[in-house]
């Protein structure tokens, strides 16, 4: 009808923008129209009836008992108030008129939000519904709403009789007031009017808990496995255990038929709380990085003591005992949570907020639960409060999985870094080892040289010395003395370190000048001053040059008859040059044109050649002698 009114718009030829706006509006209106039409169509022609009063009598009979004890009670009825004894079943009777319901031909329904723990329904003496077993083990359907569809033909216009037999347990036999026997308000009306209510309630009370239970078990197992494998993060295992425990607690909402008596179920649910507490407290401690031995021992002991105390108290006092324990356990968790949060506030501010939110949610849920037990609250709020903690648990669980993944990634990075460092260290060690080996070789060589030198001195030296001082033959003792000097120089060449050229010049000068002066020869020495001589000589070059110089001076003293001798040292153009000049009679030529071998010229030349240098001798009778020793400076006179 609405729809028709809209299409009858009198101005279809507006400008484009307006047309579009109108189109939009029309679409919206059309949608509203469809929706409201649906509502109108679904609206019951027969009004629903809400029964808030019933005739109740406690009796475990097959039919509504004909007893005088029957009295009128208010619905919702709580057995704890109206039937405080040890009651196992209560009959309720409601009488009502149903004008027109029969004629409307509609499918009728009875909606019972809560019939704890199981219900059987008779309408006008005919059985129309059984929610589960009514004898032990009684089905546990306290949270499960019942929608009973029946034909309107079963209704009479007047004096219909609705009988409900509720089987359940007095409050002192159950662990929670939630599962104490009772009956909620009963509604009767067209099926279409009640089905939405039932669906909504079922979703909250049964389906969602089912889904969440499954998820909690899944996430909990995963986290538990992670903690089990990685003992360093034991808090993960406890958290996993906490989630699984909570899932079991939550399963009370939807698990209805157990193969064992109700008392056992209640007992198991009660002791489950101690395990949940065990897991929660341990998780909070370990997550806060703490470990206390007395807690490690105390909590398992408590898990053993609690069932024992419940057994000792007996099924009659289950509720009282369980309530006491719940308080104790809740207090433990609260203390652990406060302790943890205080620590997190000081050390890990980021973690604090998440955990504080979780703790807040838990506290809120607990508070709502408590209020719901004392005052009448909208059932939906209570449901939401009940579902809040597991959702928070799941959020934290997922965060832990994420943290675990990140830690794994970090560990992998660290491992790579470590591998790289180990490799570096290995290279370094190898290098050091090589250096050490080189040093060792050098040390051994040095020691061996010293040993040879000592042997030469002690053995050969002593013998030569004996020859020097015991031989009657002057020539032999001179030869032995020269051999001793040679030996000493050889040892120095063997063991010696490089000699600064300046020091070598000093040594040479002292030797040459003192020998010349002793022989009465006028000696002159010309050499660069110290600022000009930064070079060093190898031990070998030093020794060989010393020998050449010594030989040359010996020749002058012995053979030349010179009165004057000049020694000049120069360093130029990469050459070190030593010139020894005298004014003696010169060296006589041999027949083959060579200089006299007896003057040691050959050995001087040979030594110079060994050093890649040369030794030139210029001499002529009456002209004196000039000996020029030239050594390449780059080889034997290295820069200091």
């Amino acid at each position, binding site marked *: 009808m609405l729809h028709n009114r809209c299409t009858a718009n009198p101005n279809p030829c507006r400008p484009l923008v307006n047309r579009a706006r109108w189109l939009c509006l029309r679409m919206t209106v059309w949608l509203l129209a469809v929706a409201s039409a649906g509502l109108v169509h679904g609206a019951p022609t027969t009004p629903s009836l809400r029964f808030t009063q019933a005739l109740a009598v406690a009796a475990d009979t097959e039919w509504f008992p004909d007893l005088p004890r029957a009295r009128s009670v208010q619905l919702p009825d709580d057995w704890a108030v109206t039937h405080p004894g040890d009651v196992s079943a209560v009959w309720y009777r409601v009488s009502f008129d149903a004008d027109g319901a029969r004629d409307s031909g509609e499918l009728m329904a009875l909606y019972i939000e809560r019939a704890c723990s199981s219900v059987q329904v008779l309408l006008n003496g005919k059985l129309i519904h059984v929610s589960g077993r009514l004898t032990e083990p009684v089905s546990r359907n306290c949270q499960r709403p019942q929608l009973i569809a029946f034909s309107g033909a079963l209704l009479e216009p007047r004096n219909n009789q609705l009988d409900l037999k509720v089987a359940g347990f007095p409050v002192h036999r159950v662990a929670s007031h939630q599962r104490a026997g009772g009956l909620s308000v009963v509604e009767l009306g067209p099926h279409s009017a009640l089905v939405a209510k039932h669906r909504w309630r079922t979703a909250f009370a049964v389906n969602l808990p089912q889904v969440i239970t499954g998820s909690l078990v899944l996430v909990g197992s995963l986290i538990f496995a992670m903690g089990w494998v990685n003992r360093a993060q034991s808090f993960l295992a406890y958290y996993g255990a906490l989630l699984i425990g909570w899932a079991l607690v939550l399963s009370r909402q939807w698990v209805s038929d157990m193969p064992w008596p109700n008392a056992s179920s209640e007992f198991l649910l009660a002791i489950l709380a101690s395990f949940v507490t065990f897991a929660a407290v341990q998780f909070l401690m370990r997550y806060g990085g703490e470990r206390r031995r007395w807690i490690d021992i105390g909590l398992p002991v408590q898990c053993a003591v609690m069932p024992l105390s419940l057994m000792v108290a007996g099924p009659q006092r289950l509720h009282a005992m369980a309530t006491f324990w719940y308080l104790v356990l809740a207090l433990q968790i609260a203390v652990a949570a406060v302790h943890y949060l205080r620590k997190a506030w000081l050390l890990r501010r980021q973690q604090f907020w998440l955990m504080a939110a979780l703790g807040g949610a838990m506290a809120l849920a607990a508070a709502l639960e408590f209020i719901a037990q004392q005052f009448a609250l909208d059932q939906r709020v209570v449901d939401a409060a009940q579902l809040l903690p597991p959702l928070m648990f799941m959020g934290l669980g997922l965060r832990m999985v994420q943290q675990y993944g990140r830690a794994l990634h970090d560990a992998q990075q660290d491992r790579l870094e470590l591998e790289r460092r180990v490799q570096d260290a290995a290279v370094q060690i190898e290098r050091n080892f090589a250096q050490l080996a080189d040093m060792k070789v050098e040390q051994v060589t040095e020691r061996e040289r010293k040993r040879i030198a000592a042997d030469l*001195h*002690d053995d050969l030296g*002593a013998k030569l*010395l004996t020859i020097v*001082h015991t031989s009657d033959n002057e020539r032999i003792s001179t030869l032995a003395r020269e051999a001793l000097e040679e030996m000493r120089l050889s040892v*120095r060449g063997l063991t010696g370190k490089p000699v600064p050229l300046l*020091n070598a010049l*000093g040594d040479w000068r*002292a030797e040459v000048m003192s020998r010349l002066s002793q022989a009465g020869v006028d000696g002159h*020495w010309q050499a660069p001053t110290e600022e000009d001589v930064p070079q060093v000589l190898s031990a070998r070059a030093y020794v060989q040059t010393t020998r050449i110089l010594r030989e040359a001076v010996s020749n002058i003293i012995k053979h030349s008859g010179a009165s004057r001798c000049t020694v000049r040292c120069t360093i130029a153009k990469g050459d070190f040059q030593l010139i020894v000049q005298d004014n003696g009679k010169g060296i006589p030529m041999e027949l083959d044109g060579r200089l006299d071998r007896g003057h040691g010229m050959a050995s001087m030349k040979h030594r110079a050649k060994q050093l890649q240098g040369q030794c030139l001798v210029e001499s002529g009778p009456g002209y004196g002698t000039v000996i020029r020793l030239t050594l390449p400076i780059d080889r034997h006179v290295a820069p200091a």
Partner: protein
Amino acid sequence: MKTILLLEDLPEIRSWLKSLVTQVFPNAQIVECARVHDALAQVTAQKFELALVDLGLPDGSGVDVVTALRESQPEALSVIVTIHDDDEHLFPALQAGAYGYILKEQSRELITEQLQRISQGEPPLSPSIARKVIAYFAAQNKPQANALPHVSLTERESEVLLRVAKGFTLPEIGVQLGLSRHTIADYVKQIYRKLNVSSRAEAALEAQRLGLFRR
């Protein structure tokens, strides 16, 4: 010279040296030893004016005898008679208190002359030994060089050392500095003495550091 200690392990050389010493000091009483042990015993037993000490001996080093003499008879003159001419061997002996050294293979005339000079207070000093002495005192005079009783060379002594290191002979240095031969010899003697004093102080300090004097 009245009493002379002669420490030499080779019999031929010992007798040769004895004849040489007898020639230089005709009236002297010569005590011959072949081992360090015997020489140390002699040092405690009697006084010597001169000691000719070989370095490399079968039961140790002659340096120990030089040290013992220096401590018990400071007036005695120790002279090293050795085959080693390198300062690695000579320097410790000089530090221990020897007043010069003689190389054994030298001719009889040369040794005779050197011996005479030493006994007259003119010890020899080679360029390499001079360089070592310079380096030693330079290290001693560094700021961190511990609480030694301060022994340092005078400017003149340093001057003489530097010139010796450059290869100038002692007479040459005398001429250069306008000093007599005896004055130069006195400087050299003084240098030897200071080397010994400083070395002994250093050794005492080192021993203290090692806790040898703890008692």
